């Protein structure tokens, strides 16, 4: 069936051509229609925002609300509406958002993350020992990227890592562009039941972890945190903690292997590592589709009028490839030295776990290429199964050899 494409009925998400680059249509939109209307896969429409400055405005101005309970809040996946009826705090505005975020912040400060580094390094070393004992080709996602990120977030939260197959498979349903609303609801129900049981266990036997701390210090009747709120908070942390970081590890590996000159520069000068991580974050901007908002009042953006109640999608990859801010954005350059990318979002909702992610990525890339200098992708990079249409972009599988 053919469909007429007019500016007002363009379907979304847009297609990527090069699997490591944002959809090429972003460039045209940024230049010609920086605020443009698209039709969403869940029905309804939203404004796409593609310029860096406009994206920062949307994400930092209270005119654009993150409140997922507002009627018409834009969704991309069929199951999202169900979550938004009682959303996690990342889909709330201040002061509610700040109330929840502050309960968590102590576990994510730079100093706290620094104390976690030896543990992360030990996990990475052990996983690479295991990986090197296997016969290549090996799926780097399954054998390394997912275990690293899952181990770290499980330890921080106090979720038993032995349950990782259960929550990973259910989380996968939750972020996939292929899931139906029914599959989504079933997966969410199972995750809720699992987390509810875990909260009960922490009430009976608190440990030295974030979930225990939330239970003993903030959960009703001691504090003001309701059980269902704690439940959604923990599911969100668990999901955000393992999905996004795992995608960055696998996709970042592909990006570095596809740019051997940049990888060589990094190997020659390991001090470049923090800058290289920032550049990979910018270049890949895997959370491109996550930052949705709704206009709380009528406003104007780059000359386009946006009415109250209209949905807005601040495209992170479009902002991070804005040539006005990042010259030659298509060039992966570990010397670029930028930290003003918006890969972690911007404004009061900017990623809570960003410094944990930085630490994980630094340790992972330093150790991976040191331990396996001959690492290469075992199939043509164009043929990898990419996560088109997922909320967080990445690869489903990454067969590697050495």
């Amino acid at each position: 069936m053919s469909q007429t494409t007019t500016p007002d009925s363009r379907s979304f998400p847009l297609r990527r051509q090069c699997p490591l680059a944002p959809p090429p249509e972003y460039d045209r939109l940024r230049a010609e229609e920086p605020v443009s209307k698209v039709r969403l896969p869940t029905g309804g429409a939203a404004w796409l925002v593609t310029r860096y400055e406009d994206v920062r405005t949307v994400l930092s101005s209270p005119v654009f609300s993150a409140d997922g309970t507002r009627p018409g809040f834009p969704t991309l996946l069929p199951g999202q509406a169900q979550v938004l009826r009682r959303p996690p705090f990342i889909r709330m505005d201040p002061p509610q958002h700040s109330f929840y975020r502050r309960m968590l912040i102590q576990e994510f400060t730079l100093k706290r993350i620094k104390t976690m580094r030896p543990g992360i390094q030990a996990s990475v070393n052990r996983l690479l020992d295991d990986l090197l004992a296997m016969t290549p080709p090996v799926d780097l996602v399954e054998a390394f990227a997912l275990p690293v990120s899952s181990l770290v977030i499980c330890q921080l939260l106090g979720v038993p890592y032995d349950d990782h197959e259960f929550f990973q498979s259910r989380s996968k349903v939750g972020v996939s562009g292929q899931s139906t609303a029914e599959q989504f609801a079933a997966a969410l129900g199972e995750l809720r039941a699992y987390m509810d049981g875990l909260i009960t266990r922490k009430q009976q036997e608190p440990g030295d972890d974030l979930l225990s701390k939330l239970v003993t210090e903030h959960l009703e009747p001691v504090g003001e945190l309701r059980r269902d709120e704690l439940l959604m908070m923990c599911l969100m942390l668990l999901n955000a903690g393992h999905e996004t970081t795992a995608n960055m590890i696998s996709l970042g590996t592909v990006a570095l292997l596809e740019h051997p000159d940049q990888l060589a520069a990094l190997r020659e000068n390991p001090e470049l590592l923090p800058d290289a991580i920032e550049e990979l974050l910018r270049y890949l901007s895997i959370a491109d589709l996550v930052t949705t908002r709704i206009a709380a009042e009528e406003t104007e953006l780059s000359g386009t009028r946006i009415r109250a109640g209209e949905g807005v999608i601040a495209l992170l990859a479009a902002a991070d490839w804005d040539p006005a801010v990042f010259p030659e954005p298509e060039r992966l350059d570990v010397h670029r030295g930028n930290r003003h990318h918006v890969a972690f979002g911007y404004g009061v909702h900017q990623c809570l776990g960003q410094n944990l992610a930085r630490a994980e990525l630094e340790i992972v890339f330093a150790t991976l290429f040191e331990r396996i200098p001959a690492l290469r992708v075992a199939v043509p990079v164009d043929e990898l199964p990419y996560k088109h249409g997922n909320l967080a972009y990445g690869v489903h599988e990454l067969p590697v050899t050495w």
Partner: protein
Amino acid sequence: MRITADTTICISAGMCALTAPGVFDQGDNDGLVAVVLPDPPEELRKAAAEAVRLCPSGALGIR
């Protein structure tokens, strides 16, 4: 240079302490910004100005 910080706006992202570690610090318990050097020496000013620009919440300013 005079750096200002509003801890009622700060969201404890840690971008400032990451970008200009000598100039900014984070509170141990709340992660809130602490300005260690409100008038940083010349060699730290560039990083301090970048940190102000990167602050996601708009809590930092330069007077």
